[in-house]
């Protein structure tokens, strides 16, 4: 039996598991099974490659044991760190985690391309098509790596959104792209083979810098989109690397992720009513000088804990609007406790989830799932807005930009046109907020001055705990 034929079968199985896995991942009941099926396929592909891959190149047959040991140790290290990270990370930090893992995939591709570049230039006459593929892999892998690392740093708030923006940042990025494409062209058609590898290192460095520069101007509420874009970049990179080795499982896996990542990106942009280009060019938030800043008296009404508790307890229906603030305060469990107390008194409690609430689409759903909030209680944008029209109270916990009425009526606002949760349709709105600071995107929110709005200042978890205590005394 020819081992490489068996490997072909394993790759075929793995490719099918990726498709089935992604398919199952799109339904809540089957999602976990889908993820596991894809993982099994991946394990088959990796183990199969280790033991069944045919030797190519003159020295490939030598020192097999040492090489297997090298790969084995590398996989061991990666597995231990990967598992530790995956099981320790808090659900609130999920976007950062995904970003890091994504970057590492890109980094893996970039290093692979560097090694492969050496092989290509060692050949007597390097093929342009082969070189182009390697350079493409190197470029996208590097951009994905450094871009994801910056995205991580921004989400973790190690880097502030505005620190890395240069004047005329768009022009700078354009120059980067032109330079990189020119360099790749030169390396493919113009360069002497002896120079090629060194230029490859130069390409790596410039691409790494470009990755940072690419993500730098994007911030605030746009971070989920960037993560998704970088995710599809890494997918494309994997597919290109698959072409280098004529490796079908890499191609299928890479293209699937590239395509699905792009679609997910488009869906997210739609949820914010902006074009992808608009997001990528960036400079969102901060620069937005709202036209309605100083219009008449801005009066804020505060509400006492006792009043808020009474209002909530004796209402018919309450809609909770959770945002990232809830996540930061780790308040999802207390939120659920309040929900139970109110429900016991016959109040109908629902949760309104904006598609881009939190810092990753669907992030809120994950956090509320962690607190055991039943699935049917979570409403998406359209359903939530329908329910809000008849709701007695909308209670906003740490959300800001997704409940900003400026998106509807202030053309000067940077988020004008973004579909929002119309909490002002409810009879009454209670906003739980730490302070009057503007949201993550740095935009003024007229909701806080709305006549139906009352504010309850304090840490989200703290306020919710006090509310729970108050409700219990009623």
């Amino acid at each position, binding site marked *: 039996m020819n081992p490489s034929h068996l490997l072909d079968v394993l790759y075929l199985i793995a490719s099918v598991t990726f498709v089935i896995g992604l398919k199952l991942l799109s339904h809540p009941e089957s999602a976990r099974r889908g993820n596991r099926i*894809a993982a099994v396929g991946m394990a088959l592909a990796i183990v199969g490659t280790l033991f069944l891959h045919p030797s190519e190149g003159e020295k490939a047959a030598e020192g097999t044991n040492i090489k297997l040991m090298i790969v084995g140790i590398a996989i061991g290290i990666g597995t231990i760190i990967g598992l530790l990270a995956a099981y320790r990370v808090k659900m609130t930090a999920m976007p950062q985690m*995904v970003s890091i893992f994504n970057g*590492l995939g890109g*980094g893996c591709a970039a290093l*692979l391309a560097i*090694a492969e570049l050496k092989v290509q230039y060692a050949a007597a006459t390097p093929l342009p098509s082969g070189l182009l593929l390697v350079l493409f892999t190197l470029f996208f892998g590097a951009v994905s790596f450094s871009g994801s690392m910056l995205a991580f740093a921004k989400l973790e708030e190690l880097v502030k959104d505005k620190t890395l923006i240069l004047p005329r940042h768009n022009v700078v990025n354009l120059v980067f792209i032109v330079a990189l494409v020119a360099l790749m062209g030169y390396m493919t058609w113009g360069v002497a083979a002896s120079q090629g590898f060194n230029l490859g290192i130069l390409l790596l460095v410039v691409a790494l810098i470009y990755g940072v520069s690419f993500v730098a101007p994007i911030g605030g509420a746009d971070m989920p989109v960037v993560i998704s874009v970088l995710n599809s970049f890494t997918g494309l990179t994997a597919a290109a690397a698959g072409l280098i080795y004529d490796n079908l499982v890499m191609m299928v896996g890479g293209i699937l992720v590239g395509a699905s990542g792009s679609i997910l990106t488009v869906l997210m942009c739609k949820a914010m009513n902006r074009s992808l280009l608009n997001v990528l060019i960036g400079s969102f938030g901060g620069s937005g000088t709202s036209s309605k800043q100083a219009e008449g008296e801005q009066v804020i009404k505060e509400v006492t804990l006792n009043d808020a508790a009474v209002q909530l307890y004796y209402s018919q229906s309450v809609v909770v609007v959770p945002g990232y603030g809830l996540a930061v305060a780790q308040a999802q469990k207390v939120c659920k406790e309040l929900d139970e107390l109110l429900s016991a008194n016959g109040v109908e409690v629902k949760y309104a989830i904006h598609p881009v609430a939190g810092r990753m689409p669907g992030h809120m759903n*994950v956090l509320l799932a962690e607190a055991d909030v039943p699935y049917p209680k979570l409403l998406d944008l359209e359903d939530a807005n329908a329910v809000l029209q008849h709701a007695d109270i909308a209670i906003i916990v740490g959300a800001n930009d997704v409940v900003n009425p400026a998106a509807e009526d202030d053309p000067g606002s940077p988020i004008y046109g973004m579909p929002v949760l119309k909490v002002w349709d409810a009879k009454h709105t209670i906003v739980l907020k730490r302070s009057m600071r503007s949201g993550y995107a740095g935009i003024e929110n007229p909701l806080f001055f709305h006549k139906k709005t009352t504010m309850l200042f304090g840490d989200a978890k703290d306020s919710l705990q006090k509310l729970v205590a108050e409700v219990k005394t009623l």
Partner: protein
Amino acid sequence: MDVFLNFLHENLLLIYLLIFSILLGIEVISKVPTVLHTPLMSGANAIHGVVIVGAIIVVLNADPKDVLTLSLGFVAVVMGTLNVVGGFAVTDRMLEMFKKKSK
């Protein structure tokens, strides 16, 4: 024109694969409810970790005395493994929570 057609002809199956994979990727994802966007992104993220297969091939094909290539390959495999194992594990952890309440 001839060059282009010849290229198409020689790589016909690959091009079929490319186009159908793209369509499949789009088709599979476009009906996903927002609830699942985070786990989906994280799951897809683990799948592109398949690039590790390429990193393993780099090491296997290397000259055993070529320390540079072996080191590059070693680091690449570590990174790829992190992507794969971490990605699948973290997705599984998220989805576990969805399962509890779908009872």
